[in-house]
């Protein structure tokens, strides 16, 4: 489903080259739940951005769902991102002026779904996260945990092949965080791959596989799995 080969990322600022990610290989199969851990500034976010087609890699190969994404135009990349990837952000990133229904509808409007299909997908996604009764509410009327559920509903409504979750419980208390983790696991169980960036080793351990990034070096050796577990 996701294949990175000899992929690297370097930034060039004021003629100084900073290697954010050193060349690495990584493959993730359909249906896998992978945690990405590492200290702040290690390159986790850069990895997530490249995986989510939000940033371009400098070198190497990146295939998502069988397609090499390097040569995609902005238009094609945006459409591919919309179709293949569901995003869950640490700070939810819901649009405050739109109610829950319209927030979930927003990315669906960029697809060629008709109104009925969009409606069916929105209602199903809201039911899946347990907020079907609050579709007309606005984000500010919800708790943090509920807002993150809406963000998850937005991510799954387009039936992507992978969900990229960036510290999805980072802004939540432990009880809410538990609920979100459980929801993500349910979604994964239904067949959607999940790549979750987190600081929290306990949450990372709930994934099937753990990838560690340290000083720009990515490693997914079995030793890390054991260490965290």
């Amino acid at each position, binding site marked *: 489903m996701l294949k990175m080969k000899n992929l690297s990322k370097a930034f060039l600022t004021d003629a100084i080259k900073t290697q954010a990610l050193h060349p690495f290989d990584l493959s993730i199969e359909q249906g896998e739940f992978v945690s990405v851990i590492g200290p702040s500034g290690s390159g986790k976010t850069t990895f997530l*951005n490249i995986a989510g087609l939000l940033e371009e890699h400098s070198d190497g190969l990146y295939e998502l769902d069988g397609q090499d994404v390097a040569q995609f135009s902005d*238009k094609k990349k945006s*459409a591919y*991102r919309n179709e293949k990837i569901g*995003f869950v952000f640490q700070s939810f*990133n819901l*649009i405050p002026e739109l109610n829950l229904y319209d927030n979930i509808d*927003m990315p669906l409007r*960029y*697809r060629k779904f008709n109104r009925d299909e969009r409606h069916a997908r929105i209602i199903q996604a809201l039911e899946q996260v347990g907020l079907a009764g609050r579709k007309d509410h606005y984000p500010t009327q919800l708790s943090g945990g509920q807002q993150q559920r809406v963000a998850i509903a937005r991510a799954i409504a387009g039936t992507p092949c992978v969900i990229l979750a960036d510290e999805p419980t980072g802004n939540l208390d432990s009880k809410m965080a538990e609920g979100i983790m459980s929801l993500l696991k349910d979604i994964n169980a239904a067949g959607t791959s999940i790549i979750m960036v987190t600081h929290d080793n306990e949450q990372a351990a709930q994934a099937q596989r753990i990838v560690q990034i340290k000083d720009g070096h990515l490693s997914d050796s079995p030793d890390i799995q054991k260490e965290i577990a």
Partner: protein
Amino acid sequence: MRDLIPILKTLKKQKIAPALLAFQIAVTFMVLVNAIYMISERSDLIARPIGVNMENTLIVVANLPSEQGDLTTQLEDDLTILKSIHGVVNAAPITGLPLEGWGLYMDFKLDPNEEDVAYGGYFGSNENLIEAFDLTLLAGENFLPSDIQKVENDGIFKSSKIIITKALAEKIYPDNWRDILGKSLYYHKEPHEVIGIVDKLQNAWNFWSALEYTVISAVQEANDTQRYVVQVESGQMASVIKAIPEKLLTHPYKQIDSIEALSEVKRRSYQEDIATNKLLTVVCICLTIIKIFGILGQAKFNISRRTKQIGTRRALGASKHQVIRYFMLENAIISTIGVCIGILAAIILNNQFVELLSLSPVPIHFLLVGAIAIILLGQIAVAYPVSQAAKISPAITTRGT
């Protein structure tokens, strides 16, 4: 149009900021449309043709000093001199000038015992005036030299042949203006036979409703201060102006008050209108610039406030093009709402102007063109900030900025 409904919902939720922008657009539209309409109405008034060849008509005002004897003889001498100048086509005396702001007017009757049928301005001259002004004779004929009565002062009281403008003929005979040929118009109780009709000749007062109702009488008046109309060959204006004082100043008592193109008389006549139009134009330009910067500033603020949201839209699948389209459409919707309110406000304001300043109402097509222009102006104003918005990286969604 997939963005239309979400934009409307967003605007409904935001309320104040878009309402203020729409209000600003409405006020700008209301003021601009009325001001531009006033400018265009005034420009139309100024642009009305006098009926005379403006390019080659020269006006000479000179004295006829009583010390030199008979005024009519002096006038004839002056005319002979003027006509002899190289480049002069013809010259004629006249009792007043179009748009001079000073002149003679009278009421006209078809029957001396009946009511007036019209009123208008008066010029006394001779058979050369049509050529000296380069007027277009539409019907009838010009004066013959034998028709001309030569007097000193008070020519208006003489019964004479007259040539009138088509506008005056139409005023008196709306169904067939040619019917007036051969009829007599009475003023100062004397009959005046209409022998010719010219296309157009404005009289003395630019603001007068009877500006184009003009009578040319076959009475040549010699006055202390004498006006001459001189038709000049194309391209000879400067040399004729230079030659006139050399030739005309034949004795020490002779004075020339002015030698100027008729266009200069017209410019002086509309001086205030031209100045008002310039002032209004400056106000309109300033207002337009303020509006563009206002919209630009508001759009920039709006976009910087929504940087994260734009990044989120990009991350969730909006292309750069779709971001541009979203914000352009948002501005177009607000502008349209503003313009709709503005059209109503402009009509109300215009009605006040119509009542207070006797202006004519702004025509609908003017409002529609104005509306389209304002919406386009809005689109131009947001183009730059929106192009910047499209450059916002979707990666900002994960960077916590």
